Each structure stands twice: as structure tokens, then as C-alpha cells.
């Protein structure tokens, strides 16, 4: 179980405020190496904020966050180095609009890791192959569908050979027909043992790929459990209400 895995991401008593609004309240979360944690919750519950604190795209107002044994440093060189080890996939893809698909993927390895262009290119092509888009290497992001863009974004994150991958609602901006191709890639990653924290509304993915479900409401962790019991009605009353609304149809 989770206790036997070395903790890779640890959040302790994390507090986040936007002005007077408290978004996260005393959030504790431990993600073990190789674990897939899915974060569920109604919109506005703080899911995205939570996942964004892990690579410090959001600063925190209390508590502490440790990634791979290292407390998150302040903005600067050290933080940049740590971020390179944390892959992030955004809801809106955020591919670099002025660069080709290939250049999107090789930018980090070349500029951050100091890889040679040829080396980065070979690796990028292998990753594009893996996400099924080897033929799109020369395309610009605007020429791709949402699902294709998101798969490129995953390849871009993987090119840094991250220790953990963060997914912030990776399928929420996609047309329904493109959702499964992205989830397929994510499932493949999970099966390969990648450590993942995933914010999503895809219950099917949560049920089949997650090692653990964390349910968040109004900035507090209400449930932190394995998927089986969570979906079988032994979760918190708030989570059951949430599930009944989502799964009603």
C-alpha cells in the first residue's frame, strides 16, 4: 500500500488564500513513488490550485511542500531545476504557439537539460511515436485538434524525464470524441509506473487508473482512500452527493 512507497510529493498543512478567500485549508497529501492519485471535487473546491502549488505555479500561505525530499525553494534557479523534474499538463494545453510540435518538445531538453539538438530530436520523435503523432512533428500547434495538442503537451512534459507528472483537468477543454485518445496515453503512463497526480472529472479513468482518490470540497480534503470504497458508497456524505450528481445520467 501507499505507506510502503517512498514519498515523492508531500504536502503538510497547506494553506492558500486569494485575498480574503481561503482556497486551501490545512491540506495534507502524500504521493508515493509510482502512485497515481486522482483529485476529485466540485468546481471551485481548490483542485487546480492544489495541483499548481506542487510546482509552485501558485505560492502557498502556510504549511510546506516537499518534492523528492527537497522543500520547494523560492522563485529562482533552484526552483527552475526542481520544476524540470515535475511534468505538468494544463487544461488549455499551452503549447508554445510560435514553435513547431517538434520544437515544443525539444526546447526543454536542449535549454534546461543541455541535451544536444540531435539527441533531443531523437527522443522527441520517440515520444511523438508513443503518443501516436510522429507524422505531426513539423506542424504548428494551431494545425492540431485539441486532443492532438494535449498529446503533444504530454510528450513535451515527458521529454524532461520527470519524476512526477501533474495533470490539471487535461481533458476538460476537449471535444468528447478526443477525450479517450488522451486518457489512453495517460493510462499507458500509469501502467508504466509513472507517479501521477491527476485533477479530472473523468470518473472512468479515476476508477480504473487511480491507486488513490482524494476528494476535495471547499479547500479541505474530505476523503483520501482507494477507489473501490470511494465509489461503492463508503465515502464522505459530501462525496456521495457529488458522485450521485455526476453519475446520475
Amino acid at each position, binding site marked *: 500500500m501507499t505507506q510502503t512507497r517512498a514519498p515523492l510529493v508531500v504536502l503538510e498543512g497547506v494553506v492558500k488564500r486569494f485575498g480574503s478567500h481561503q482556497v486551501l485549508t490545512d491540506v495534507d497529501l502524500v504521493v508515493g513513488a509510482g502512485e497515481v492519485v486522482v483529485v476529485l471535487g466540485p468546481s471551485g473546491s481548490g483542485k487546480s490550485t492544489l495541483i499548481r502549488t506542487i510546482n509552485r*505555479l501558485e505560492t502557498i500561505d502556510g504549511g510546506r511542500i516537499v518534492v523528492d525530499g527537497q522543500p520547494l525553494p523560492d522563485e529562482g534557479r533552484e526552483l*527552475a531545476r526542481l520544476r524540470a523534474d515535475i*511534468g505538468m499538463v*494544463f487544461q488549455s494545453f499551452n503549447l508554445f504557439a*510560435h514553435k513547431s510540435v517538434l520544437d515544443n518538445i525539444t*526546447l*526543454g531538453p536542449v*535549454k534546461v537539460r543541455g541535451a544536444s539538438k540531435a539527441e533531443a530530436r531523437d527522443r522527441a520523435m520517440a515520444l511523438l511515436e508513443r503518443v501516436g503523432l510522429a507524422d505531426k512533428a513539423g506542424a504548428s500547434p494551431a494545425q492540431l485538434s485539441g486532443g492532438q495538442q494535449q498529446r503533444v*503537451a504530454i510528450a513535451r512534459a515527458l521529454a524532461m524525464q520527470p519524476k512526477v507528472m501533474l495533470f490539471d483537468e487535461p481533458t476538460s477543454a476537449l471535444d468528447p470524441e478526443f477525450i479517450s485518445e488522451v486518457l489512453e496515453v495517460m493510462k499507458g503512463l500509469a501502467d508504466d509506473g509513472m507517479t501521477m497526480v491527476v485533477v479530472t472529472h473523468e470518473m472512468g479513468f479515476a476508477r480504473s487508473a487511480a491507486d488513490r482518490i482524494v476528494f476535495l470540497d471547499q479547500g479541505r480534503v474530505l476523503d483520501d482512500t482507494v477507489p473501490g470504497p470511494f465509489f461503492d458508497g463508503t465515502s464522505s456524505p459530501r462525496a456521495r452527493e457529488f458522485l450521485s450528481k455526476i453519475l446520475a445520467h
Partner: protein
Amino acid sequence: MPFQYLDELAEGFLTTLSLTLLSAVGALVIGTVLAAMRVSPVPVLRAVGTTYVQLVRNTPLPVLAVLFALGLPVLGPSFGFFTWAVLALAVYTGAFVCEALRSGINAVGVGQGEAARAIGLGFGQTMRLVVLPQAFRTVVPPLGNVLIALTKNTAVAATISVADITLRSNALITSSADPLGVIGASALAYLVITLPLGLAVDRLEGRVAVVR
């Protein structure tokens, strides 16, 4: 007729052209550095950038030119009037370049910068490799405006005795007693620089437009 004076304005034209080119390069460098300062996460840099822009763009250019040419030598440095004119124009126009660039930087979605930082790029790399290349594309039209304004603003050099188109014209008006003809020639001489510049900007805009 204006055309008969063009020959006599040729030397002034070359002076105006070099004023324009040199101060444009200076303004682009200063403006880029200022813009990076104004969007940086370091409060001191932001404050310095903001103060510079507010002070410089709210001072009339002729005042700035005279301050440079007559004021700064008191403090030590001694250059010719031409150099002072270039410096004053570059310093002044740099503030406007900064604001044009900053509007472009703000137009680049925050997600682009976040994605860059998320793969481990530092602030400088994020700006240089991801944000500025996209910002430059959206600022080509406003930057073109700034450069065209700069070309015309070089006329301020005449107030500190630099023999540009305007100074030569003023002399020619007195000697020829044909103010309209000379001013017409002077206008043509400026158009020879500004019109192609405007067309080049339009061309560039079409070429670098980023597909979103």
C-alpha cells in the same frame, strides 16, 4: 518648386537617416531591457523601469535634448552634438518602445509563460525563448508607429545645432526666400524615410503573424 532644393538637402538627409538608424537601435535595446524589467518578478527592477518610463515619456523631447547636450557635459562626459542627439532620442524613444513591447507581452497568454516555467526555464529564458518572440509579433504595428514617430522626432536635433534636414531647411528658407518650396522639399525628404518604413512594417506584420 520643392524639387530644386532636394540636392541642397542631401547632406541633411544623410544626417537625419543616421540619427534615425542609430537612435532606433538604441531605443530598441533600451526599450527591451525596460520592458523585461517592468514585467520581472523583482520589485526593485519593476520600480526602476516604471520610474524611467514615467519620467522620460512625460518630458518634452526638446527639453530632454537640451538637457543632454548642455546639461550632461557639466557632469563630465563630452560628446559632439550629434552623439547627444542620438542619446536623447534613444533614451526618449526607449520609453515608448518599452510600453509597446509591454502591451505585446501582456497579450501573450499567461499559460505560455506558465508552460515555460513548468519545464524548468528560468525567468530570462522564459522571456527570451517563449514570451518575447510572440510579443514581438503582436507589437510590429505599434512598434512601427514608434519608429516612424522617431524619424520625425529627429528634427529636434536641429535645436542643438545638428545639421539635419530641418536645420538645413531653416537655413535654406532664409537664403532662398521660398519658404513653401523649401518646406515642401523638407517634407519629401522625410517621406523618403517614413513611407518605406511604414510599408516595411506592413510587410513584416504579414510575415511574422503567429497562427493561433
